[in-house]
């Protein structure tokens, strides 16, 4: 996203005057990178803050000729996975994802249609469809991010899309 290049240049100079604008332009992608893994509203917001902070603190490593959204999404996703793994060890349960969901049902995003749709998918389908459709990442970038072959990513994506096309009418 070349439109983000000027922001990166300013951030590298420790000038954050335009951070609010940058946040507004990127918050959806960061949010969905996390919420496909962690659904608790408070945790998602904490992770969003952590993701942006990590992004700004290592801004010198950001190559603004590449897709900044992909870089930001990767940071957000990795933080979410780290938390997921930590919680998994703490809870010692195979139902970690559900546990995280059930921690505070009043504060989840499950009321939104988009979450009902994504919940029709399994974890890998949900993540790949989110990253490609909502975050607008290329399959090659997704494959690199989730460390799976490009062919596997494409296959999972097609499988998920097919599932949604079959079921989405029942939920919308």
């Amino acid at each position: 996203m070349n439109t983000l290049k000027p922001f990166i240049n300013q951030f590298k100079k420790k000038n954050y005057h335009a951070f609010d604008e940058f946040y507004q332009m990127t918050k959806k992608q960061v949010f969905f990178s996390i919420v496909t893994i962690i659904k608790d509203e408070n945790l998602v917001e904490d992770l969003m803050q952590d993701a942006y902070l990590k992004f700004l603190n290592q801004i010198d490593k950001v190559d603004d000729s590449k897709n900044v959204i992909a870089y930001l999404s990767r940071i957000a996703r990795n933080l979410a996975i780290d938390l997921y793994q930590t919680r998994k060890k703490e809870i010692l349960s195979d139902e970690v994802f559900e546990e995280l969901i059930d921690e505070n049902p009043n504060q989840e995003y499950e009321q939104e249609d988009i979450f009902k749709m994504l919940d029709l998918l399994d974890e890998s389908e949900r993540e790949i469809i989110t990253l490609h459709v909502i975050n607008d990442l290329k399959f090659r970038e997704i494959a690199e991010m989730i460390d799976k072959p490009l062919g596997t990513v494409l296959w999972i994506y097609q499988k998920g899309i097919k599932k949604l096309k079959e079921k989405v009418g029942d939920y919308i």
Partner: protein
Amino acid sequence: MKNKDLKKMLIDKSNEVEIRDLSQLIMQRIEKEVIVLPKKDHFKFALKLRPALLFIFVTLLTFSFFIFSPRNYTLAYQINQNEEQIILTSISTLQIGFSDIIIETSLDDDPLISDQIPRMNDYLLWMELLFNQDAFVLNEKTNPYIGSKKHYIFSSKALDNQMIQYEFVIMNSKNTLNYMTIDGFIKYDDDSYPFDIKIQVRQRSYEMNVIIDDHIIIQSSYQNQSNQKSFSFKVYDNHEIQSEIILNRSNENGNHVLDLTIEKGNIEGSYRFRRDNGVLAITYSIANQNRSESGTMRVEIKDDLGDKKFEIEVRPQGRPSFVIETPRPPVRPNPPRGKNNS
């Protein structure tokens, strides 16, 4: 349903999700950089201005004594015992006198406020004293210097209870209908400083011009407008104004608010000071020729193994916060170099 319709639906639905604006929280959490300013020589800048500015302080403070002595100086009495603002003026002038008038401008990428911290350091003590006016005490000395007309001791306390004290000795005074002239000397520690001033007095306001030497003139004025007391301080060098500072003191919800405005200088702007549970809370807005900046600061006095320091947390808008630790200036002003007349 076609793939593109499904994708559009996903995007549309994702756009419906309300995502909280966390940008301010993120800005506040950016790792704070702690900058420790070295102890500075408070008299390294503009040596010729230092004694001049000290003397204007002397002048104003001495003037305040005449306000306290209306029996002898009827014109001063017309000011209607506005001792508070006179003392305010005096203290203010003192701290202006020990502040840097010109400060180097910052690099393009640095927050403007970062270069104002040395000046701010001086203002902080000024504000500290102004917020602590209840501690002001003025006494006439019972055994004055031989030949003097009056001999006073002025004392106050900073917020940490450190004492500030001066002695003022009035040797001569003359009154006319419009003017008052005074000469004498000020004394603190073992040093004495002579002064010779001419004061123009008007009811509810006053203006004061003090010619320090062939080059330096200090002009001060005071006005009382409804809820606001306004003080102006101008420093002229060779008839060119070098610095203009305006101090407004007002009351908001029963609390004192001090607004400091720098109207002339390479960086202009305003600072609003409030006391907030022992912390000095400041909002600022400053600008140079190229850019402007606003933000907030919180100032605490810390004790570092007996050395007092200001810890200033600076939050420039749109930039990361940082903390500056800077030695607190001495409450009792150091004497200007080369002056030792005792």
